[in-house]
Every structure is written in C-alpha cells, then in structure tokens.
C-alpha cells in the first residue's frame, strides 16, 4: 500500500540527522517536523529565524512572530532572529544542511519546477529559488502522479524551472528515488509497491 501524507513525512524525517539545520517547505514538508523524534534538528524560517517552534496556544499569537508561510509560530530556547539578507546569506552559503520541499514536477536530471504554471495566476517564487540553489541537500516530497494520474517525475520538466539540476532525492507515495547518473536510482519502494508499479507511474528513466 502506498504511503499516505503522514507516512511520506515520516519517511522524509529519516533523512534528517542529529545537529542538522533544515528548511521545511509548505504542505507535506511541514509535517516532517512531527516525526523528527529526539533528533536535535533546528528549523529555519527564511523570513529571519533559526529555531522555529510550534504554533502558539490560542491567545498567545504574536504579530511579530511568523514563519515563511505567514503563520503565527513560537520561539524556542535555541532561537535566534536576523534580517532577510543574513537569512538568505546562510541559505545561499550552504549553511542549511537540507531543504524538504514540495514540487509540481521533477526531472531525471534533478531539475525542479514548483513555482509557476504559465497561463495561471503567478504568485512568485518567494524563497524557493534561493533554497534549491543554496542548501546542501534538496529533498522533494510529493505525490508520484498528479490528479489525472500522470507522472510528476519526468524525463524533462515542462513547467518553468525553480532550479536546474538541484534535486538530490525524491520521496513520493510510491517510494524513494535518487537523482543519479543517466536517470533515477530506486532507493526504496513503499510497502506493497512493486518495481513494475513504480515504472508504470514514472515517465523518467529509472536506473
């Protein structure tokens, strides 16, 4: 049986090691925080914070304390605040060990598209282009196929790119794939998913 959203997040959390500074994107990646267990992980919020805590209790919301998704959050004992230039300095400078992000499309060469669909409303890339260009390891977590059942893992992206050759690992409901030489390497299959199932759902080359 393929993984559900929480199981994908749980699998993604296995990517994180003690001591890592990590940036989590919106959607399933946000759920990863629920599965880090007792690993010492520090979450960055790219609007200017290291050590992001959980949502505040009702009545304790602080308008001066939000995450990159503009949600109210809290601080921790380890927290530090800084400005946006410093924040993206640490992202661009490779100080963030990993980013776990959602995607619209990933190509077998590591290209990532997750910020615009031509002809639809364009909201902007926010910090996504900086993150994929700068962090040590880019891990995409997404459904393997779109709502029409078409593969989101392609030979080459059809949508405008967020970054070129930036993805290291893809975690989907069907399994785990690594961007490798000449194609994607199957690292792991979700329980009950066969290699044939994965091949049928994947446009990209599997090696």
């Amino acid at each position, binding site marked *: 049986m393929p993984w559900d959203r929480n199981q994908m997040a749980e699998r993604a959390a296995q990517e994180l090691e003690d001591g890592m500074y990590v940036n989590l994107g919106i959607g399933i990646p946000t759920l990863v925080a629920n599965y880090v267990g007792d690993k010492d992980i520090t979450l960055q919020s790219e*609007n200017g914070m290291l050590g992001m805590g959980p949502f505040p209790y009702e009545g304790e919301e602080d308008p*001066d304390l939000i995450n990159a998704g503009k949600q109210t959050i809290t601080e921790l004992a380890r927290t530090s605040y800084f*400005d946006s230039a410093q924040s993206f300095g640490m992202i*661009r400078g490779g100080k963030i060990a990993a980013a776990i992000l959602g995607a619209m499309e990933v190509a077998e060469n590591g290209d990532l598209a997750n910020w615009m669909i031509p002809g639809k409303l364009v909201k902007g890339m926010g*910090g996504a282009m900086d993150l994929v260009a*700068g962090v040590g390891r880019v891990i995409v977590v997404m459904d393997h196929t779109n709502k029409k059942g078409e593969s989101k893992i392609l030979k080459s992206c059809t949508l405008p790119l967020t970054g070129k050759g930036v993805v290291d690992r893809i975690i989907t409901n069907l399994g785990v794939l690594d961007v490798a030489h000449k194609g994607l390497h199957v690292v792991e299959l979700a329980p009950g998913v066969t290699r044939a199932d994965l091949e049928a759902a994947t446009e990209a080359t599997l090696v």
Partner: protein
Amino acid sequence: MKKVYGSASEALDGLLFDGMFIAAGGFGLCGIPELLIDAIKDAGTKDITIASNNCGVDDFGLGVLLQTKQIKKMLSSYVGENAEFMRQYLSGELELEFNPQGTLAERMRAGGCGIPGFYTKTGVGTVIAEGKESKMFNGEEFILEEGIFADLSIVKAWKADDTGNLIFRKTARNFNPPAAMCGKVCVAEVEEIVPRGSLDPDCIHLPGIYVHRLVQGAHEKRIEQRTVRTREEA
C-alpha cells in the same frame, strides 16, 4: 540634528515625488511601515516603483497604494495574497519584476553597501537568468544581480533612540535593515522612541547613520494567518 518628526506625513515632507523609487521593509504584513504607507496614500504620489518582498493585502499595507493606483511597478518575490494586485497585473496596469527572495534582500543590502553588482547561483537556468550576464567561478555558473539604489527607504522598527539607532522585534526584522540601507533617505516608524543611552550599544540592529527621520505611532500589526494549537495538544 533632530530626527524625530511629529507624524508620518511630516516625516515624509519634501521626500515624495511622482515616478520615485521606494524600498520598503516588511514580510507579508509583519514589520511593515504601515503609518508611512498611509501617509504616502494621503500624499497622492503617483507612478511609484516599490521594492518590497510582498505587496500587502487588499486593504492593508502596500495594498492600499494599489487601491489608489499609485504604484507603477513592483519588485517582489511573492504577491499571492492580493486580489487587486492580480487584477492590475493581468490587465497590464501594473508592472512586476519577480526577484527571488534572497536575491531581493541581497540586492538591497548591496545597494546600501556601495556594491553595484554581485554574482549568485540563485536562478541560474531559470527565467530569472534571462537577459542577465553570467560568469563561471570555479567551474560553476553564476548570474550577475545588481544593487538596488532607491530614492527613499520606508521601514518599521520596534524601538528607536533619538539618534535613530533601531531595534526590531523577532521576525518583524526581516527586510527592514536591508531596505533601510539602500535608500538615499530613510524614514523609520517605530512603536517607541527612547532616550539615547537606553538601548544596549551591542544590540543595535540598525545604527542611526542609516536613519534620517523617525516617527513614533500606534501600529495595528495585523496578523495575516492566525494559526494556533489547542491546549489539549500540549
């Protein structure tokens, strides 16, 4: 040299002109110079180009200057919260130059630091790189981004002393320091002005040299997405 002004309108007196370029601090609705934005609305300045990560919401923040059609062009990384923005953009009334968020912040800081251009990996191989010079360093490709030099900076801080030293609070710092640095003149609005010597000199986030005018006022500080957990979850 007195930096403290009685109102946001007074603090902007003589600084506004049609077609000007303004750099604004804030991220979403957090740490935005709401009083100065309202004063610019009242002044009716037209054809403004604004560098700001976002453009507020329809009725708050920079969104109010969209309602009055005072903005000609935005340099932003994300404008998803604003229906009027989309309407004006799609109808061709409003120009938009997308900047990756980190590139925008660094461009502001660069302008303030006398750096007219710098190389970055961000955006290489994407539409952002189109029309930009690129250069190889150590076998890797980088694109040239230019410093932002604005006519005016408008920022919001938590506290100031009367010499213009500023401190910010939590994530309301965000774009405010780099935005403050890149303007010919910088006007800051704060929640409280304290006497010089009251702030720890080791903890000044933005030295007064960057801040030409100051105004103190009450801030709405609207929350864009109120997310909470219930006590039971604890």
